[in-house]
């Protein structure tokens, strides 16, 4: 059977397909396209590292240059996944070193990466260019030293929100003097002080350095030195933004910041001394992204800053911004796409700041391009949610956290069903939703009915019965990730929608009402799902059928039961064929 096009032409056409989604689609057209595509796919994204295994990857894609893997479930971010659950990248690295010697990029999220892994990467991939570790743990600065010492062509070292064992800052001195290719260095999550002269020399010999995010230990007094060595920076993160007040330090800082004509993105700002804030005012009007979520600055200092950021697209800030600051954002930041407001004092019930639902309503009204919201607050009302929904039907991501679980509408004391219902009804392109507050099964009915593009849903302390879960699983056609905690959802909805689970990446349920027996049944019925019961309290082989499981993680997989489970995790239904007790 001859092809319509010669292979080279098809390959050339495929090279214009950049998204995983498009490439997956063309592979389904016919066998020859599948073959053609798999030989020329260079970038692979694996959203759940246990959905496949290294052998499956290598068998299908022989020419991979860039790999992205995600490990632990999202709720691991909030300590809900016990240590030792899994997400080890080790086996992947071993296999890839063997089969992909030309690998250039590794991007990992929520995976356990050991120093040995980093050493293998450093020594195993001659052309290695990009290492991006987001929310990873398991390694120390020794591992970073191995990367620095061995990766001669490194472009990107991006450590975001990782838990790194900080043995010393000496790792940076391992970059050889001949190393000049650095484009991005993000070390913001590290604690220990690196040798400043090593850092200085590294920056000085990296003409392509566009992104530099320092850690807290780099003192403010040294900032201007670095900025003057790298005026081409596009993204910059300061260290601690405090020093004894000195006019010399201040004026050097002013000069250094104004020298950076391409600077678009600022972050850092730990321990702010307000006197030094005006030093970066000259940059504000060019900023498209500003992350002040570690900065203990309050209004009016905060308002003064945002009111100069006319081109801001992303703003991350603490609730010190208060409603007044957000009003300022609404007036000034007409290009705002994303807003994240974090709580300054999350464990205190009484409000410590004047931030309410008003601030968010104000921004939703004033910022026509607002698409993505993450908002922590202490009170919410249905009327506010309805306003937000009507103001911003273009929202694609809406994550609201009312600090008190099951808090009702503070004006009417009703559940917030109608408010969230309005969000899903108006925001037709909503892809991600996190809810909080008092919610009954009704809100899930709205979600099942309207949220047809919803990809990820996070639920906590909500609902009345299995009906709630059933509405979501049966109604949300695009749902791929569902995470639930402390809701009265049980066996019925889960078993009735078992086949839905095969269309999703994963389902997490903790502190719900799913019985051990139902998990077993589900595991037996659905061979392409791993139904993992996670329970640290009991011996997993002696729990009775009717007992509720502590935590449940269900995901589709072609790799079968994983082999690296700790004793508090058990994959249900795989071994039970032979064990009838």
């Amino acid at each position, binding site marked *: 059977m001859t092809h319509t096009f010669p292979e080279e032409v098809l390959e050339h056409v495929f090279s214009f397909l950049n998204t995983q989604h498009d490439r997956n689609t063309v592979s389904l057209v016919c066998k020859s396209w599948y073959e053609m595509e798999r030989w020329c796919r260079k970038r692979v994204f694996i959203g759940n590292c246990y959905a496949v295994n290294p052998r499956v990857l290598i068998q299908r894609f022989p020419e991979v240059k860039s790999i992205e893997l995600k490990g632990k479930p999202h*709720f691991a*971010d*909030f*300590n*809900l996944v016990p240590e030792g659950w899994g997400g080890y990248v080790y086996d992947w690295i071993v296999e890839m070193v063997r089969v992909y010697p030309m690998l250039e990029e590794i991007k990992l999220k929520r995976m356990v990466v050991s120093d040995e892994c980093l050493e293998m990467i450093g020594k195993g991939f001659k052309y290695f260019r990009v290492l991006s570790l987001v929310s990873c743990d398991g390694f120390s600065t020794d591992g970073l030293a191995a990367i620095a010492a061995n990766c001669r062509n490194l472009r990107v070292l991006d450590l975001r*929100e990782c*838990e790194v064992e900080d043995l010393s800052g000496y790792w940076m001195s391992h970059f050889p003097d001949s190393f000049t290719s650095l484009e991005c260095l993000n070390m913001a*999550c590290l604690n220990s002080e690196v040798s400043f002269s090593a850092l200085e020399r590294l920056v000085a010999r990296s003409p392509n350095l566009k992104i530099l995010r320092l850690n*807290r230990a780099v003192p403010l007094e040294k900032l201007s030195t670095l900025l003057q060595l790298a005026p081409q920076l596009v993204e910059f993160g300061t260290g601690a933004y405090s020093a*004894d007040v000195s006019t010399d330090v201040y004026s050097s800082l002013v000069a250094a910041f104004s020298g950076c004509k391409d600077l678009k993105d600022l972050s850092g700002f*730990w*321990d702010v001394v307000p006197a030094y804030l005006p030093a970066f005012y000259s940059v504000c009007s060019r900023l498209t992204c500003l992350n002040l*979520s*570690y900065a*203990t600055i309050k209004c009016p200092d905060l308002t003064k800053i945002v009111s100069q950021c006319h081109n801001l697209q992303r703003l991350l800030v*603490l609730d010190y911004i208060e409603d007044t600051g957000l009003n300022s954002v609404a007036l000034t930041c007409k290009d705002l796409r994303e807003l994240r407001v*974090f*709580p*300054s*004092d*999350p*464990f*205190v*019930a*009484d409000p410590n700041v004047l931030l309410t639902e008003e601030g968010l309503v104000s921004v939703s009204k004033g910022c026509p391009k607002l698409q993505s919201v993450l908002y*922590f607050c202490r009170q919410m009302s249905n009327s506010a949610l309805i306003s937000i929904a009507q103001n911003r039907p273009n929202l694609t991501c809406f994550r609201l*956290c009312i*600090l*008190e*679980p*099951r*808090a*009702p509408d*503070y004006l009417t*004391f009703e559940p917030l069903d109608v408010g969230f219902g309005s969000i899903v009804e108006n925001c037709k392109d909503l892809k991600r939703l*996190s809810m909080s507050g*008092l919610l009954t099964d009704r809100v899930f009915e709205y979600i099942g009915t309207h949220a047809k593009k919803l990809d990820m849903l996070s639920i*906590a*302390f909500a*609902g*009345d*019965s299995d009906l709630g879960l059933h509405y979501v699983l049966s109604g949300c056609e695009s749902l791929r990730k569902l995470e639930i*905690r*402390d*809701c*009265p959802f*049980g066996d019925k909805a889960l078993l009735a929608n078992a086949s839905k689970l095969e269309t999703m990446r994963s389902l997490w349920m903790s*502190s719900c*009402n799913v019985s051990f027996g139902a998990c077993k049944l589900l595991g037996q019925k659905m061979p392409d799902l791993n139904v993992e019961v996670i329970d640290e*309290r009991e011996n997993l082989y002696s729990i009775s059928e009717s*007992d*509720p499981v502590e935590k449940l993680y269900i995901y589709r997989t072609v790799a079968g039961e994983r082999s690296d489970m700790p004793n508090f995790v058990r994959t249900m239904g795989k071994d039970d064929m032979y064990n009838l007790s």
Partner: protein
Amino acid sequence: MNMEDGLCLTLGLPGRNEPDTESCYKNNNNNNNNKRSQPEYNDDSIESKGSSIAKESDMDTAPAPKSQVVGWPPVRNYRRINFQAKKVETESGIYVKVSMDGAPYLRKIDLKVYKGYPELLKALENMFKLTIGYKGSEYAPTYEDKDGDWMLVGDVPWEMFIVSCKRMRIMKGSEAKGLGCNV
């Protein structure tokens, strides 16, 4: 299995009499009626908050720490730790430990509360029931500065002292004799 039984709200529903103290910040598992109840305290977070909790109770103004539901609110660890440590320092004063030779336990004082050296020494004298300084005193007030060196209290301007003082030690006996006090 009605989850509503365990509702805990800071604002009571009409007709209900739920005081603030019964908010979910204190009660975290009374809703799990039909489950094995285990206290789900977030050990990590409590430990990391340990020092800041101690500081807050010193203040007498901060609300009592609430028992926490694991993973709620959904704020990542590094946001809590990095931020909490610094916040307490900027809002509640400069707390330094004070040890006295021979005393079985240490004390803590807030340097921000005092306007100058005389007030500080007065407070120390009251706290430890002794006299400091010359006039035949056996005690000398010393402090550890940012460089890790032990200095005699009183040499530098007060403002510089309070930002560079990491902890204090009231030295006694032969080591102290002759040091006097520079206040």
